[in-house]
């Protein structure tokens, strides 16, 4: 990478978070290794370390996959057991990869990686076509509302770079995707091993006129990935210096979950319902005219109102839903199954409450997308629709409209472990 270009571009370069999904043998680690290698994000000492490690296992070639296999336990077993984060940058964008493994705990890990992603890369082995796992990954991408889905049809070198193989996989996948809510979907024929259409355009597939994977990652439009309409400001922390210089300063610190706020806007504070106007939007020593998601700022209001963490500041004419009875999709993350009627701690925006599982409406068969109303056992990696009742009202939007105010987690009160990921319907 040209250092000078990078230096000049850091004022305009954007952040793109993406997650990768694929099964063990479809070349996901090789693809990531290829992206890192061709964008020069692999350093000499890292290369040296994986060359030595490859030699120790008796492998013939340098195994690019070793770059992404972090922990010793994993290296010994030859599997990836958790979400690992990788970084690389081009002059246009900085990328954060949430690399999730494709084996048994796939759902839990993929949901974790997908929760903050702008884009999902789903790998398909060109020789095997669309398999059950591909559909599961597509379903999770849809459930988690990842704005952009990129289907990489890999190992094209092993099917002689044939267009009809690519077309057949695309047609099959589109048939399935019709049942899902994926906003933006792309198909790219690649060979991660040989480098075709990853960073460099392939010379073997003249029939493909679309972008390379890197071009797409650099240019896919992410400007509308955040909700810019509904202003939601969960109060995180109250700032009261009580100093000689700022004796009466009372600021509400937080991160805009969505939308924009301007000085002078008429706002309402939930749950109290008191209204006021925004006096200032402060960020360190600057006073801003406006703030937008996902900025972290501090608001001051014209009126003295009692506001604390967990409250939400919104516009008077655009309010979230307020309720104690909530309908949601839940993905279970723990070996101990969900207890119907059980009580859990719940975190939503900056709010912490308790809740009770009132009802399991159905469980989803993740392979067929069928709704099972008979078997309502929600265990590890299961996805279902449930109804809960909370001890205090939450201020929320549907997950489809708002990934921040529409998401919540459930916590086991005995172990304090996060056990469920919820998306409000």
């Amino acid at each position: 990478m040209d250092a000078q270009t990078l230096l000049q571009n850091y004022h305009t370069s954007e952040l793109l978070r993406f997650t990768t999904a694929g099964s063990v043998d479809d070349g996901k680690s090789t693809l990531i290794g290829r992206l890192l290698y061709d964008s020069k994000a692999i350093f000499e000492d890292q290369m040296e370390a994986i060359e030595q490690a490859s030699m120790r296992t008796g492998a013939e070639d340098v195994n690019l996959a070793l770059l992404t296999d972090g922990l010793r336990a994993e290296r010994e077993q030859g599997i990836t057991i958790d979400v690992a984060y990788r970084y690389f940058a081009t002059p246009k964008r900085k990328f954060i990869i949430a690399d999730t493994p494709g084996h048994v705990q796939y759902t839990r890990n993929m949901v974790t990686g997908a929760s903050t992603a702008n884009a999902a890369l789903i790998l398909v082995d060109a020789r095997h076509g669309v398999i059950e796992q591909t559909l599961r990954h597509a379903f999770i991408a849809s459930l988690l509302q990842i704005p952009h889905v990129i289907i990489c049809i890999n190992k094209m070198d092993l099917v002689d770079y044939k267009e009809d193989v690519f077309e057949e996989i695309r047609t099959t996948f589109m048939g399935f995707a019709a049942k899902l809510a994926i906003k933006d979907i792309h198909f790219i024929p690649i060979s991660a091993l040989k480098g075709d259409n990853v960073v460099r355009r392939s010379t073997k597939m003249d029939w493909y006129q679309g972008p390379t994977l890197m071009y797409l990652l650099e240019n896919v439009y992410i400007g509308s990935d955040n909700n810019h309409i509904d202003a939601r400001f969960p109060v995180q922390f109250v700032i009261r210096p009580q100093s000689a210089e700022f004796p009466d300063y009372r600021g509400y610190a937080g991160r805009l979950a969505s939308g924009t706020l301007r000085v002078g806007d008429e706002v309402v504070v939930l749950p109290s319902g008191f209204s006021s106007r925004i006096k200032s939007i402060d960020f360190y020593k600057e006073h801003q005219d406006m703030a937008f998601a996902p900025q972290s700022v501090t608001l001051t209001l014209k009126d003295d109102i009692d506001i604390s963490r967990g409250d939400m500041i919104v516009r008077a004419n655009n309010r979230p839903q307020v309720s104690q009875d909530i309908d949601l999709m839940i993905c279970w993350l723990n070996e101990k199954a969900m207890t119907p009627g059980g009580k859990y701690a719940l975190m939503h925006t900056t709010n912490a409450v308790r809740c009770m599982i009132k009802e399991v409406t159905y469980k989803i068969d993740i392979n067929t997308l069928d709704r099972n109303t008979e078997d309502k056992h929600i265990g590890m990696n299961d996805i279902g629709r449930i109804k809960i009742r909370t001890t205090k009202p939450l201020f929320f939007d549907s997950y489809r409209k708002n990934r921040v105010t529409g998401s919540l987690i459930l916590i086991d009160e005995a172990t304090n472990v996060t056990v469920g990921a919820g998306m409000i319907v």
Partner: protein
Amino acid sequence: MKNFRLNHLRELEAESIYVIREVAAQFERPVMLFSGGKDSIVMFHLAIKAFYPARLPFPLLHIDTGHNFRETLEFRDALMERTGTRLEVRYVEDSIKAGKVAEETGPNASRNRAQTVTLLDALEELKVDAAMGGGRRDEEKARAKERFFSHRDEFGQWDPKNQRPELWNLFNGRKNMGEHFRVFPISNWTELDVWQYIALENIDIPSLYYTHEREVVERDGVLLAKSPYIQLREGESWEKRIIRFRTIGDMTCTGAVESRADSLTDIINEVASSRITERGARADDKRSEAAMEDRKKEGYF
């Protein structure tokens, strides 16, 4: 700021400030670990921005190995005074004197590992329930899977196979008595991001990061600075080189790189075109392929 988009540095900044504020809100006795290195300086700068115009609602904690560069300590003290920040210092020397940990001996002796004992004792003494550190996921393989909120058992240990899932921006800081959290607000920053941000915000850093002449010894491919804590082996000798430091830690294990970078622009250029990772110059990570993983499990930073 066109089209309501933040550039990547401002987005990382917003995320880190959010994490630091979560720590202040969710925990009763948090501390921020401070080493005087660039990562902890950036983290401290973000904390100042997070709570302005109020002071930090938590103290800083420095674990002093006794093998620090003089420049680092001077820089630290000046920064604390300028910002009116509360600083706690605990000394590895004291842990050694109290017989809690044995001093390593031999030509590669280092207090890097010993500081884990001092750190855990300090956290217990100060009843800390969350310790923020400047660790970044791009530094090292074992860090790539670290959470923002990383749970530690009552022995301060990390169990990489049993980490809590971390979804969206919902950070679960619940714990049982005696347990604590390590929190890494700048998890998603790379070395280059840190330098670009230092330039963008015009943050003051210790002079060690800029080029200067210094007596060093080359050992196993690492350039170590002359200090009373390093004994020459047979055949080794001190020699003057034009160097700078890419990371700042203990004098016994922080390697220098030959460089003439005397401005932030030069440093950023050097980092962007560098072909070796910054930890590649640290003798502590060279000990074994899984060195960092082992130290982290014991309770290292």
